């Protein structure tokens, strides 16, 4: 569960990025966060990952109160969150398998578990045949699926996807969101930040629109895929 209670954030240079945000995202929800550049979406994500601490109010993520959290507890919080970025952030000199396994290795998971879990998650994103390939040999859509597998591999409660379709061609964008939807149906909360309104209109669901640091719209809309 994610909760923002009266959250404001002002950067050290005085620029206010978020102002009195109140939000609650329940477990198992799928939420689109939309908004123009500079609206405060990135700040929102940084607050969720505890890269930044709210200057006012409280941020609660998966039972952690991020406003009072000690620095040394941050890794624990992040192990409950999977993150997917627009630029994939894969390690170029590691194979698909190693990129996914990396997320488990760094949290000191047992080798046996890694050997069983990684191929399973790679199969979920449909890349079993490419497990030994390097990121540069893959298309944008495939790279993003590797990033998704990496986010998924340690079974997070929440997946934050920061414009995951930004570097992917339109047809593949729908596949990525389909995958996120499938993950969500398995019980993982998904928060997807996007600029692509066609995707939002197509899939529908809860839409949160942020503008100049405030939530200006928070409604559930019906999607075109449901009409089919």
């Amino acid at each position, binding site marked *: 569960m994610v909760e923002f209670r009266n959250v404001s954030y002002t950067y050290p240079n005085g620029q206010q990025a978020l102002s009195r945000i109140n939000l609650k995202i329940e477990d198992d929800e799928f939420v689109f966060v939309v908004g123009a550049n500079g609206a405060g979406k990135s700040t929102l994500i940084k607050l969720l990952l505890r890269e930044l601490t709210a200057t006012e109010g409280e941020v609660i993520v998966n039972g952690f109160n991020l406003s009072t959290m000690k620095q*040394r507890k*941050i890794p*624990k919080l992040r192990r409950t969150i999977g993150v997917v970025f627009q630029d994939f952030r894969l390690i170029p000199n590691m194979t698909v398998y190693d990129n996914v396994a990396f*997320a488990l290795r760094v949290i000191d998971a*047992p080798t046996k578990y890694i050997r069983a879990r990684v191929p399973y998650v790679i199969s979920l994103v449909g890349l079993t045949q490419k497990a030994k390939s390097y990121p540069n040999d893959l298309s944008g859509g495939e790279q993003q699926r590797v990033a998704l597998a990496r986010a998924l591999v340690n079974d997070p409660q929440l997946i934050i996807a920061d414009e995951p379709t930004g570097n992917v061609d339109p047809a593949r964008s729908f596949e990525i969101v389909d995958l996120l939807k499938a993950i969500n149906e398995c019980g993982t909360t998904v928060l997807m930040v996007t600029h692509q309104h066609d995707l939002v209109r197509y899939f529908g669901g809860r839409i949160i629109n942020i503008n100049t640091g405030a939530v200006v719209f928070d409604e559930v809309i019906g999607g075109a895929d449901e009409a089919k």
Partner: protein
Amino acid sequence: MRLNSFKYLVKQGFAGLWFNRVNSFASLCVITISLLMVGISVLVSFNITQMIGAIEKRNEVMVVILDGTPDNNVDLLGEQLAQNPNIFEVNFYSRDEALAGMQETMTEDEKAYFASYIHNNPLPDTYRVRVTDISKLSETVKQIQQLEFVESVQAPNDFASILTGIRNVCAILFSAITVALIIVCFVIISNSTRASVYARRREISIMRYVGASKSFIEIPFFVEGLVIGIVSSGIAFGLTWFAYTEIFKMLSTDANVFSIFGLSAIIPFESIALKTGLAYLAFGIVLSAVGTVVSTRKHLNV
């Protein structure tokens, strides 16, 4: 931490060394040179101390025994002198030996002239003592003066203060060089770590996002630093061994050096090889590993 994870991190450290091989090589060279300079400066300092010590030991303090002191009291005085912690050698030099010694330096005419005027030996019995620490000479002289049956004490006080001064200046100079080189090493390690962190920023940022602990992120850098430290100290030790032995050989063939300072003036490498090796290893490891950890914390901000 699991053994497999530890192995993985160590492997990552070695991979990092290879990945940043130009930087690693530069760090290795600079740390080796710094270690060499510190090592050489310490060894030179040891040798200078040893040389000064050799000169100090040649200095004799003459304790003139009161005329007419009974033999058993002379012996007692000898024992008292030997008990002084700063005295390592006590030799009795009788008035007859002194006279014989004086006559050895005279011509036959002088001897005849001397014998015609002086019938009784006018020279006193003396003890000639050598002190361990010349910087405490005046204190030791005072202690001797307070002993019974001592008429006077003759000591080379000026010479002692010059030697002590030289030794102090050397100690300060070499300490300053050592401290300066340690600082240089830290700066270089810090820069090298920064470059290494920069080269792996993508991996580090992913590690952070997936919840890697601080130590997990730092260990590969620590391994890198450790390996550089160990290899540097090995190279520095080898070079020191070679250079020191060659210089020792050169000086051994030059009779003047030994005639000035004595045979034990230069310490043979064999007698300090183990200590030097261990010091290099400890210094290299501490410097590189601690330097890496400190600068990793600074540059990683994890």
